[in-house]
């Protein structure tokens, strides 16, 4: 039987995974943006990126950003505010708030992608 996964372990792994994903996105993002010297090119690419598929992917990006950011705040509370006693409770709050933010944030994306109509 492997070691039991408790909230802290989930938080850690999700934080790492989302962090790595965000870093790769950052590389891609900067690469894409930096290749856009002229307006023509820029808008071509933007149009390409405005396809529904990328909007859906952006929801994933949003999820990663939201969780990584909120859990980052949780980590800071543990590191600087002695919140160890309630670390598990904070994790559940982080999850709940993340879910809400992701849901709310996803609406414009989906609207834009035409999934929810314009």
């Amino acid at each position, binding site marked *: 039987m492997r070691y039991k996964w408790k909230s802290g372990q989930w938080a850690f792994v999700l934080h*790492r995974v989302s*962090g*790595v994903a*965000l*870093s790769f996105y*950052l*590389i891609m993002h*900067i*690469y894409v*943006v*930096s290749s*856009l010297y002229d*307006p*023509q090119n*820029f*808008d*071509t690419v*933007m*149009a390409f990126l*405005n396809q529904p598929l990328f909007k859906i992917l952006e929801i994933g990006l949003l999820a990663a*950003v939201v969780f990584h*950011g909120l859990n*980052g*705040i949780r*980590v*800071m509370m543990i*590191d*600087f505010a002695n919140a160890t006693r309630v670390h598990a409770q904070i994790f559940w709050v982080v999850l709940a708030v993340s879910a809400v933010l992701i849901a709310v*944030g996803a609406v*414009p*994306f989906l609207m*834009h992608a035409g999934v929810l109509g314009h």
Partner: protein
Amino acid sequence: MERGIGSGGAFAWFFQRISGAVLVLALLLHFWVLHYSNQGEVTFEIVAQRLATPVWKTIDLTFLVLAVIHGFWGFLMIVRDYVHSKNMRLFLVAAVWTVGLVIAVMGALTIIGFHPPLPVAPPEQLGGMVQ
């Protein structure tokens, strides 16, 4: 105790937290500006206008540098966690630094070098490309 590469870590730890906090705020701004303030429209025009002001240039540069360092220090953390062969670690640390620097320079050049054509190109010229 071990000295040289791998000793210390206090600064990295502290910086990750401070940069993280700043990034949370910066991201809020970034998201708002990018996806909500213009109903999600991202056009050359809008971006170009924004980037023309020195304030935005500074904000974006700071954002870029912090994000790159935060992200790449994250990678270094993972390397330190799991790579224990000295040579492999040196190689990976060097690789992470190299990629990080390249990306940072690339991004910085984009931000600094993003000269919007003045006066701003008329919308018709871009016309059909925009949704």
